Every structure is written in structure tokens, then in C-alpha cells.
């Protein structure tokens, strides 16, 4: 609901305070990363490969600990969608989608309900009893999204989740993701290489520099939700994408 997006302004869901990350081998991955994501915001980070984007999400989720600075986020129900679908091969779609609820000891009937609802949201109805080996890349990603949706996470981290699917599937998943965002009202932090994907889905796009990564530019994306596929051919969309692209090229240097 758009109301959530506007009325919940200024409530920080996730904030990075001057984050720096140096790995034990001396690689400096991040330096002075300082921004926050508010409820009802969908923020995307674009940046060159190896700039530390994924590292930032790992720090946000607690999988890694930063060497400098503070993170503020509620990790109890954080949603985190990886680059790979990471479905358990031995579980059906239903079994996979139920996993998180199961790990959080939610009773069987309740997690069935949550899973069925999430499967419905991502449009995988009819595939509940399929095993991952018989799903396409896009369907695996949908199952992975559904798995995370069962927790109704207030914060949703996406680590380049649609990088491995074909262009058409990616665009459809982009459209569906922004609908989900609008509907569920989570705070989203999305990572990608694709400028079009970033501008299409986000309320805000951040550009990260090459390693050590830091935020070098910020763009507000003014388009109303729900966004239509044709938005991609809007001149304003093209102009904004061009600006992001210019910044990104600068950050490579």
C-alpha cells in the first residue's frame, strides 16, 4: 500500500553508520559507508563488480561483522535473498518455502498457511510439490522469494537475485518485486549491476565506488508505484538512467 510508504516516513529500518570492512588478508572492502533505509523505501546500490556490495549485505544481516562503524537493524526477522536460489534439493517447493517458519518453530498448520500464501504471492501455484531440479531459474528465484516472504520481514535484503535469469524473466521479476514491495511495505535494500533494474524498482539509487566501496552518488527516483513496464521507455526514466550510468562510469575510474 502506498499509504504505508508515505505515512511511515522517517522511521529508520536499517542504518549504516560509517561502516568500514577490512578482511583478515588486508583487503579493504568498504570504507565510510553511511546511509540508512527507511520503512517504505526501496534503495538499490549499483556498483562495479567486487566493490563490496555483497559484503555490505552480509554485514547488515550479521553473517559478517564490520571492522569499523555500527549497523542498526532488527535481525530477528530480516529477509535476505541470495544471488543463488539456494533451495534445498531434497525438499519440494512447499517444503522449501516452509523452511524458515520451521526454523523459527512456527507450528505446522500456521507455516503451511504462510507458505501457501507466499507461494500464491509469487505465482508458483501448482508447483508446490515440484522438486527444485524440475524448476527453471526464474521459478527457483520465485521460490526463494516466497521462502523469505513467509517471515513478513520488515527489512528485505536482495543480493543481485535476478542476475542469473534471462532478460525477459528478469523484467517480469522486477515488476513483481516492486508490486510486492508496494503491497508488503518492507524496507528494501537491493543490489544489482543493472541500471535499468535499479531505476525501475527503487525509490532511491545509490552508486558505490570501486574497492574500497563507498557511496559516491545518490538519486531519488520520483515515479509513482505501481510502476508499469512501459516506464522503461519514458524519457525521464532514460534521463535518470543516463545520469546513474555516468556516475557509475566515473566510479570505475
Amino acid at each position, binding site marked *: 500500500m502506498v499509504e504505508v510508504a508515505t505515512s511511515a516516513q522517517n522511521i529508520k529500518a536499517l542504518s549504516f553508520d560509517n561502516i568500514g570492512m577490512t578482511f583478515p588478508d588486508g583487503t579493504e572492502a568498504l570504507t565510510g559507508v553511511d546511509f540508512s533505509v527507511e520503512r517504505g523505501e526501496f534503495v538499490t546500490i549499483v556498483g562495479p563488480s567486487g566493490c563490496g556490495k555483497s559484503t555490505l549485505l552480509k554485514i547488515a544481516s550479521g553473517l559478517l561483522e564490520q571492522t569499523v562503524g555500527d549497523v542498526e537493524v532488527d535481525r530477528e526477522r530480516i529477509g535476505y535473498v541470495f544471488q543463488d536460489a539456494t533451495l534445498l*534439493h531434497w*525438499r519440494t517447493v512447499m517444503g522449501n518455502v516452509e523452511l524458515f517458519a520451521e526454523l523459527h518453530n512456527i507450528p505446522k498448520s500456521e507455516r503451511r498457511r504462510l507458505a501457501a500464501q507466499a507461494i500464491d504471492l509469487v505465482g508458483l501455484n501448482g508447483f508446490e510439490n515440484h522438486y527444485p*531440479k524440475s524448476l*527453471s531459474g526464474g521459478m527457483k528465484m520465485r521460490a526463494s522469494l516466497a521462502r523469505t516472504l513467509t517471515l513478513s520481514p520488515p527489512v528485505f535484503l536482495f543480493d543481485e537475485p535476478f542476475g542469473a535469469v534471462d532478460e525477459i524473466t528478469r523484467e517480469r521479476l522486477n515488476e513483481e518485486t516492486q508490486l510486492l514491495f508496494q503491497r508488503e511495505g518492507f524496507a528494501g535494500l537491493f543490489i544489482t549491476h543493472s541500471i535499468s533494474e535499479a531505476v525501475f524498482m527503487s525509490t532511491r539509487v545509490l552508486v558505490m565506488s570501486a574497492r574500497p566501496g563507498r557511496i559516491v552518488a545518490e538519486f531519488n527516483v520520483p515515479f509513482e508505484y505501481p510502476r508499469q513496464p512501459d516506464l522503461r521507455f519514458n524519457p525521464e526514466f532514460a534521463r535518470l538512467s543516463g545520469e546513474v550510468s555516468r556516475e557509475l562510469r566515473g566510479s570505475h575510474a
Partner: protein
Amino acid sequence: MSTPDPTPLTTDRSKPLSLDDAPVVVAGPGRVKSLSLNILPPLALGTLILAAWYFVSYRLLEENRRFLLEPPHAVLQVGFLDWGNFSEILQGLKSSARVALIGLVIAILMGFTLAIIMSQSKLFERAIFPYMVTLQAIPILAIVPLISFWFGTGQRSRVVVCIIISLFPIIVNTLFGLQSAERGMHDLFTLHSSGRATRLRKLNFPAALPAIFAGLRISAGLSVIGAIVGDFFFGRGDVGIGQLLRKYANNLDGEQLLAAVIMSSVLGVTVFLLFGAIQNRAIGKWYDPNST
């Protein structure tokens, strides 16, 4: 990225053959073609082997030395169609199969326990592994005398031989399997703060099943060999196929010797197929051998 595709017609023998694998072709020339592709080559080779066998029996061996390789029909007549002889071999097989099964079950229990301990603690893994390799490196015949020293020459010793010979593949494969879950999957369980036991039960163990079954098929075959070798060497107690092999060899009963060898192999193949069928039943639905 994989989409369901009809099971391809295959002559791949690395996969267990079962009804589920049967191609879903109803009729038509395709079926005839596949049948001929699957059946004809081994049939042709088999015929060639039989011809060579006859050639050796009748052309290369003089009559007084023919017992070295009796011709196929003689083996069939004396070894298989003479019920007295054949039932003796079947009895021996039954005894050896029982020993192999007992040894295998104990090896599985020991192997699983050790592999789970090793998977949970690097310290134990480092401590145990060199000894497993050492144990594996001992030629079985070298410790058979020692086993008879300690456990006598009865059935118990044969079981010990089976355990020693089949333990290693179970441990190595189970351990490898338990460590095979992808990093990303572990991250999922870490994010949702799962304990060790949950992780083992819901992640490590199911992820290990394909490797465990691969190990079981190897070990089951080895256990059969262990039962026969043990029986052959100890030569006492309940008569198994090993003692029969020795008896036939000593009596120069060439037909029965060959029949016993063939039936030993049949036992091994049966065990292999049996475990393949169990594997297919257990993990065939989700396991895709072509994916990583």
C-alpha cells in the same frame, strides 16, 4: 535452470537401473530401436565370449586337461542343472550373503557414527583419519591370520573381515557428504540461528544422502567379497561359497568351480542392483546427478 525432460534413453550404467528409469515410450519404431541398442551389443559380445570359451575348451585344451576350462554346456549341466550340486552352491551363497549382510550393517553403524563425529569436530577428523587410511591400506589377506588369532575361525571372524573391508568407503563417503552442503545453505541456517542438531538433521544429513548411497553400493560389494575371502581363508564352520570354491578347486571339479564363481558374481551384482533400487526409492525423486 534445468527443466523436466523425459528420461533419455541411456546405456549409462553408472545409474541404477530400475523401472522408474524405463523410458516412457509407448510404442513405435523408437522403442524397437532402443531395445536393439540396449540389448544387441552385450548379446553380441556374450556370443563372442562363448565362442572363444568353446574354442579354448575344445581346440586349445587336450582332453586330459579340459578340466581347466570345461565348456559352457558342461558347466550348465553339472553346475546349474544338477540340483544336488546347484543347491550346495545356493546354500553356500546364502551363508555368505548372511555374513556379508551382518558385516555390512555393523560397518554402516560404525561408519555413520564415526563420520558424524568427524564432521562435527575437526579435531576428531584429524585424529581419526590417518588411522582409517592405514586400516584401508592393509591388504585384507595380511590381517586375516591375525583375525583368526583373535576371533577364531568361525562366523565371527568372517564378519570382522567384512567390517574391515567395507568400513572405509562408508566413512569417507558419509563424511564427504556431510560436508557437501553449499555455503549459501549454511548461511540460511546461520541467519535463522539454527542449532547444531537442527543443522545436522535438516541440512547436512539430507545433503549427504547421494554420497552415502554411493558409499553403500561400494561397501555392499566389498562386504560380499569379504565374506567369501574370509570363508575361503578360515575354511571352517558354516559352509559358505568360499569353502566351496576351495573344495571344488582341490577336487578339480571345474564345472562346479566355474558355476560357483558365476554365482558369486551374481550375488555381487544382485547386491549392487538392490542398493541402486533402494537409492532410487530414497532420493531418486529429487537427486539430479547432473547438477553440482
